[in-house]
């Protein structure tokens, strides 16, 4: 594999590999690099590649789903109650942000363990919304 890699703009790389030409752009964050190569995105973790809470919202680890707000917004309506069983894909909570209502859904089946917010609440980015177990 013969790779010719040049940083041609800050964080933008021209790569010629075996005669093929690629353009790659890098965005660093605290614990990873996001690398876009010809429109496809890859995450290169710096630390523990299993720590996947980075992008917020419903990250499913070992059955437990910890739903957080990925950006500032307002809770329009909570669609479930504590103790309620939910199915994969079931709507849990409606949040409005940037003039758009977004229904957050369960990634897998479970039971609502805890609801942190109620209708009309203003939430900050990263704020816990509810927990499914």
């Amino acid at each position, binding site marked *: *594999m013969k*790779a010719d*890699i040049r*940083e041609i703009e800050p*964080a*933008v*790389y021209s*790569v010629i*590999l075996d005669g*093929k030409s*690629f353009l*790659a*752009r*890098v*965005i*660093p964050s605290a614990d*990873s*690099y*996001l*690398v*876009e*190569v*010809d*429109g*496809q*995105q*890859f*995450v*290169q*973790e*710096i*630390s523990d*590649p299993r720590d996947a809470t980075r*992008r917020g*919202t*419903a990250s*499913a680890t070992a059955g437990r789903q910890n739903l957080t707000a*990925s*950006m*500032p917004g307002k809770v*329009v*309506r909570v669609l479930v109650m504590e103790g309620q069983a939910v199915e*994969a*894909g079931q709507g849990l909570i*409606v949040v*409005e*942000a*940037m*003039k*758009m*209502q*977004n*229904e*957050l*859904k369960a*990634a*897998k089946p479970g039971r609502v363990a805890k609801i942190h917010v109620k209708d009309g609440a203003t939430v900050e980015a990263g704020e816990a919304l509810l927990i499914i177990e």
Partner: protein
Amino acid sequence: MFHKVLIANRGEIAVRIIRALRELGIRSIAVYSDADRASLHVRMADEAAHIGPAPSSQSYLNMERILDAARVHGAEAIHPGYGFLSEDADFAQACADAGFVFIGPSPDSIRKLGSKTAGRRVAIAAHAPVVPGLEEPISSIDQARAAAREIGYPVLLKAVAGGGGKGMRRVDAEAELEAAIRDASSEAQRSFQSSEVYMEKLVVNPRHIEIQVFGDQHGNLIHLGERECSLQRRHQKVIEECPSPLMAAFPEMREAMGQAAIRIASAAGYYNAGTAEFLVDSESKFYFLEMNTRLQVEHPVTELVTGLDLVHLQLLVAAGERLPFSQQDVSWQGSAMECRVYAEDPENGFFPSPGKIVHLTEPGGPGIRVDSGVYPGWTVPIDYDPMLAKLIAFSPDRKTTIQRLLRAVGEYAVMGIHTNLSFFRELLTDSEFRKGNLHTGFIDQFFERRHSRDAPNPELNAIAQLVAARYAGARKQIPPPQAASRWLNEGRSGLLR
């Protein structure tokens, strides 16, 4: 012609209007909220006026602040763009009362057509077909229940003052009706300062095709053909095109729909730009839905196939001049298609993705037009609609236009925030889309049949690793572990409808 015009809007449409004004030798006045001091429309305008804090209710929807700015800066006319106050008859009236030309139809025309229920009444009187439904807003849950039973489920709730899918709800059964009315009303109130909602029969998987009309103040009223806007996600248009693939099969439809649109506009004494929206059912019958009494987001599609500039024409007729051509001078050439580029994350339920644009490369070259409202280094604010730009392609035929859009999407790079560009890459390669069998349920079906994406390309993955290592090395940071590259789209499917 005017010497100075204020633009009561922001983002790409404000930039679009500044460009038209500059081409006509007219000075432009931008307005901005606290969140928009550094926005593209402010840096491009000749003059700029601060009109209040970030929330649009206190800035872009604040009539008094906008009229004050127009007075202070000596504007002769006000262009409302789309959204915000563009379809507000009271604002059009307030402009006139304050001595400014409102660049749009008369307040009376807006009233006659601006609300969906009023528009339906005009259309019925003008012998244009309409979808069965209420002619008045919903006043009580009992009335709504009775009406829905008569019309038959599924029904559709819509904001009377609305547009863009806001305040809209599909209701499949009576049990859902009350909550749906509550949600739709509250969303309508927040979006349009009016909680009024009405109901119509839901035509299942119709095409959404609209007709651009244009009139002057001397009684000339013409149509500029259709735009097919069937590709919608949550009632928001995603892709628009002209000609509609349906018109290719039934060329006489353009003229039939065009004439229906002209009849409706004429009945309301309409002038300036307007758009009559129609649903087309599976038997190619069309029904008038509503009139948008303003410039549409997707107007560039019509500009490319007709060779006209709709904002130039808006200014011309607002200044009292005659349309400089008539219906038989309008012709349509080639194929145009528009993608609305949003700051949103297709891998995460299309959730809005505001933030700083760290890197931006916009496409160019033959047949590509980008109407952008952003620049590299700018931070997309959380306060407004997350549309970044419109990417429009033009070529002799639909197939080439789609290929051209794909080529342009490949050149388009927005780093630092998520955008729906990757979604367009998938959609534009979809074989059903290419066949042109479009309807408003198309995108939902697309998500269902699109089981999982191709696996990550191992060659690109290897390059990502090389580049990350090089980046880290050059900056003396901890390099990423060599084999730990993770494709970003893994496990995203559970979050998508």
